[in-house]
């Protein structure tokens, strides 16, 4: 019994000691944690996960750039829309009353009258050669990947540009037969494009879409293809959206030349 009591009191004493020690031990634990905070930071982990984050952000950035870049016109193209990016923006600015046609450097980008409506013999004149927009003839030049061997009327070709076509002209004095074949291969079978010789344009190749132009002496210039890809039926550059390239005129200067 006595021994039992002793044990009991012993254990009680033990418990007392334990509980007395408690604050001490928790203090020690706190102390221990404080010590651990002072341990060197795990730079390896921090760097690894930071790098993963940077790579992820880089990928997102690259994707955003690719999407944005695809909507940008090819560099080096001459635009006649002044400070505006394209036809749609100028049209909106005019509609909102921000500007009038007189404020435009090249008002012809917004001029789309058929000059032969009243007088069938009337012919439009253009500030630049080859022209890249402006008043034109009532008939468009058929532009279903059409390669014309002789010159075509400016007024018909400009009407094709209004319909969303790209017109490739070459200077016959600067491009030989092989060169013509090389260019024709880009146009043949490509809907909404047409090609014709243009005497004295002074540069081997000139590309026209409504309100824009690109000229180059290099037949292998990748911008020729980029211009076709970007401007054919471009939704922001449609002077007359959804018009057709079939059913136009297919006559050239050769057809109209006196045969006698």
């Amino acid at each position, binding site marked *: 019994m006595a021994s039992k009591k002793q044990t009991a009191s012993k254990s009680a004493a033990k418990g007392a000691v334990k509980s007395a020690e408690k604050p001490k031990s928790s203090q020690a634990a706190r102390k221990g944690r404080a010590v651990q905070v002072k341990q060197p930071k795990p730079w390896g982990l921090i760097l690894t996960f930071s790098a993963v984050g940077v790579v992820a952000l880089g990928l997102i950035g690259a994707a955003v750039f690719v999407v944005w870049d695809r909507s940008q016109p090819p560099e080096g193209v001459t635009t006649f829309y002044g400070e505006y990016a394209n036809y749609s923006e100028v049209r909106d600015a005019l509609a909102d009353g921000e500007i009038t046609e007189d404020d435009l450097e090249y008002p012809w980008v917004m001029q789309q009258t058929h000059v032969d409506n009243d007088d069938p013999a009337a012919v439009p004149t253009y500030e630049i050669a080859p022209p890249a927009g402006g008043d034109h003839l009532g008939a468009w030049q058929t532009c279903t990947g059409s390669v014309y061997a002789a010159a075509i009327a400016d007024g018909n070709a400009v009407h094709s540009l209004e319909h969303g076509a790209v017109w490739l002209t070459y200077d016959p004095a600067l491009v030989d037969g092989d060169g013509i074949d090389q260019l024709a291969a880009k146009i043949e*079978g490509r809907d909404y494009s047409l090609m014709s010789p243009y005497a004295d344009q002074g540069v081997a190749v000139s590309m026209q879409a409504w309100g824009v132009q690109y000229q180059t002496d290099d037949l292998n210039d990748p911008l020729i293809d980029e211009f076709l890809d970007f401007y054919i039926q471009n939704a922001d550059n449609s002077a007359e959206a959804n018009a057709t390239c079939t059913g136009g005129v297919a006559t050239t200067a050769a057809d109209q030349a006196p045969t006698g």
Partner: protein
Amino acid sequence: MSLWRRPAVLVAVTAVLMLTAGVAVGWVAATAAPGEDSPEAGFARDMQTHHQQAVDMAMYEWQNGGDETLKLVAYDIATSQSAEIGMYRSWLREWDVRLSSGDSMAWAGEEHAHDGDAPGEMPGMATDEELAEFKTLTGTEADLMFIDLMIAHHIGGVDMAKIVLDLTDDERVVDAAQRTVNVQQAEIESLEVHLDRILSTVEE
């Protein structure tokens, strides 16, 4: 701070995040719009061109044909195919791809590259010479050539629609292609009936 002390938790969190990102990327890729070189985009581009020729021929027949019933068929073809051209064009703009390419039928795969009269040509297209000849005709002569050209044109259109049906799961494209097969097949049969009728009146 404590997170850095538990690499296991950090790795688990990162793994879950990356798995989510992977699933998201996969889902977006699987449901994304057809791309530049997809059969859907190629089909829409080519059908746009193919339909335009039909509209061109039908408009000529509407104006210069002889048979009033056939002229009404031509009116139907010109208006309905014009509407479909607009549909193809809006797909292409929505998908943010080129509106035209120089490689007709490239989307259809190697085995169909020669379905047209020449390599890379669409099946059923009238040649420039045929079109020029047609546009010199009027009355019954125009009617007969219109039927010839349009039957060949529709057979080609049905072929193209069947090819894309083999290549796509895009609901809109499947729906439009199936409609093309049904409508143009029916029109071929109807044109054949008109041909017999017009021929019999000519012979009388």
